[in-house]
């Protein structure tokens, strides 16, 4: 793992348009039961423009930023030696179908643990207006070279 990744500037990910059927598919996959995730009328009754994504849907956008990290030629990260240790989301508002979202990656910490490294990766997710929606933070345990 390369400590120089801390503070490196990454370009925002290409805009991701959140589709209603994608939200329904994701809601079903996490065994969600509440109609706000699947029924536009139920979501509108709560004041949203369309169906509300489950809270962990933000991971779909964060994954795009993690792919950027893995694609860095000097990252020193191999996916098969990577363990997801912690995950956190901080929300300004929920993701709603129709949102066009971009994620901006930053590496906020790299800590050596024996031969391994604990890497904290943050994705700041914003809507088309540039307003903050959610920040997703992953702590990854990266295994060292054998």
């Amino acid at each position: 793992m390369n400590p120089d990744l801390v503070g490196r500037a990454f370009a925002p990910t290409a805009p991701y348009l959140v589709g209603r059927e994608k939200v329904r598919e994701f809601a079903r996959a996490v065994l969600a039961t509440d109609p706000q995730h699947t029924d536009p009328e139920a979501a509108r009754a709560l004041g949203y423009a369309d169906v509300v994504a489950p809270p962990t849907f933000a991971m779909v956008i964060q994954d795009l930023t993690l792919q950027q990290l893995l694609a860095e030629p000097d990252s020193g990260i191999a996916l098969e030696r990577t363990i997801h240790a912690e995950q956190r989301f901080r929300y300004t508002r929920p993701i709603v179908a129709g949102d066009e979202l971009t994620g901006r990656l930053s590496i906020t910490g790299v800590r050596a643990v024996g031969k391994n490294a604990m890497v904290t990766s943050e994705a700041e997710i914003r809507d088309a207006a540039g307003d903050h929606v959610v920040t997703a933070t992953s702590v990854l345990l990266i295994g060292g070279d054998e």
Partner: protein
Amino acid sequence: MTAAELSVGDVVAERTVHLTRESLVRYAGASGDFNPIHYRDDVAARVGLPGVLAHGMLTMGLSVETIVPWLGDAGRILEYGVRFTRPVVVDPENGADVAVTAKVGALDEGVARIDLTVTCADTTVLGKAQVRVRVP
């Protein structure tokens, strides 16, 4: 639900969900996480795992969904974090049962901390699974 109706220690929601290999394939497709340790026994065995595992993000996602009907509005969730401490092994025939209990952990100025206890086969699989929610 208002802050005045809540006390620390109250169980606000609970459920047990049954996961099968189909659940894992469905989550892989919905999330885009196609790591083969979540659907291939041979790959799981080769990397030294006790079996095919549920995605940590599936466990995290289904756990928080347990409280959404009680909250009434997912927009009340301010923050949600977990540590992935133990794997959920999903047997090809019998699947796995994941039990979630959501309890009020703390109350402060219109914000409740909901602590999730998430177990599979009597083992706690998520650590410090806490949701901060706005309560009017």
